[in-house]
């Protein structure tokens, strides 16, 4: 593709399934997910990257869906909150329940994506380090303590589980 186009056709993986959409070039990944694929778990809070409500996994790493153009995600592997499955996620979800890590739920999808990345990438993070890692996800309800506790609890349990497996 060489001439600038006002509309684009995007092929990408979303939650493990190949999806295709023809959208205006200015469409964000968030808008593609929400409006075209009806995956409304990815939320829009600020649309400039500060609040974290739109955070999804792109090719395995957290990214702001509000700051990615759908056009730029051709060929990408996207996972939204709707696509979070597996043992790791079950542990995370249980930890959030046990530690009261959510209230209204608006920040929760972005928080879960970020938290999953933290427990994978920094399984031994301290509470302070977790707070820094979560600094890009704003929550207006909880005061963050339950969220940090949930991430620590999940990290610790996942660590125990992998120690079990190793034995």
């Amino acid at each position, binding site marked *: 593709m060489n001439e*600038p*186009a006002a509309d684009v056709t995007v092929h990408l993986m979303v939650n493990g399934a190949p999806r295709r959409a023809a959208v*205006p070039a*200015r469409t964000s990944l968030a808008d593609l997910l929400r409006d075209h694929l009806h995956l409304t778990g990815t939320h829009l809070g600020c649309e400039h*990257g500060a609040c974290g409500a739109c955070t999804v996994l792109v090719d395995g790493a*957290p990214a*702001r869906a509000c*700051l990615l153009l759908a*056009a730029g995600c051709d060929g990408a592997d996207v996972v939204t909150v709707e696509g979070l499955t597996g043992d790791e996620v079950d542990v995370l979800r249980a930890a959030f329940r046990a530690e009261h890590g959510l209230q209204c739920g608006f920040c929760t999808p972005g928080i879960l994506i970020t938290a999953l990345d933290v427990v994978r990438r920094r399984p031994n993070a301290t509470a302070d380090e977790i707070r820094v890692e979560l*600094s890009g996800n704003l929550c207006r309800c909880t005061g963050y303590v339950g969220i940090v506790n949930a991430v620590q609890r999940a990290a610790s349990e996942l660590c125990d589980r992998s120690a079990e497996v190793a034995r």
Partner: protein
Amino acid sequence: MKPRPFGYAAVDSVEEAVALLAEHGDDAKVLAGGQSLVPLLNLRLASPAVLIDVRRVDALREATRQHDGASIGAAVVHAAVEDGRVEDPTHGLLPAVAAGIGYRAVRNVGTIGGSLAHADPSAEWPVVLSALDANAVTRSPRGERRVPVRALTTGYFSTVLEPDELLLRIDVPPTRAQRWGFTKIARKTGEFAESLAVALVTLETDGRIAGAELWLGGAAGVPVRLATAADLLRGQAWDDKARREVRAAVALDLDPPVDADGRYRVHLHGVAVCRALDDAIGGQGAL
């Protein structure tokens, strides 16, 4: 909000990118990570007619060792630097700086070249790469040129880059300093800095300062070299007297404050510089 409509083109090569920039010039913007550009589009503070997406240009994502220095492609993401996946001739300064940029989700996508080209006065890379005396290499229809990063930024969100000029890579030279210190002060973790201080220091065998390179970001439209403060440190021990003198010298190198807010900011910058020197001399980083 949503951006105004634009034309989008993804390119696979530097040549394609430059050709499109030549064709569309002032009406086009390069899209690398978009973590600075897309917020502007969403807020309608920028409305380019054309976006040229260079994320698939492999040449812009390479990072290689060059003699004792490093060459970092303009589209290398901050997270790659943070994680140590990029050649680092600064013994930890580059990763430490990268780790403080915004949030991980932003660092996974935002690029070092984008930061330089955007020239936000509170951004990390313009001031840090100025302190390191790095060079930016660019390509335009007129060919390639090397621009010292110290000469790249001309003012708030303004650089010497022409509308048809693409940033290719940043060459970081080996540095003569022995130790580094870096301080970012922001109200909230991840936000843009209220003050950014970089200190590159060489010590005598008795612990006195042989030489220092001091740079300040977030204080003006361009990164500020603190020449007065650096000069007075030569031959000095790093003690409370030196700290007081540095804070006074920082105030001299900045615009005189006219109100309480200005006085606070100058004080803040002095504190940031002292913390960076504490880090450098107290043993944070050996270069």
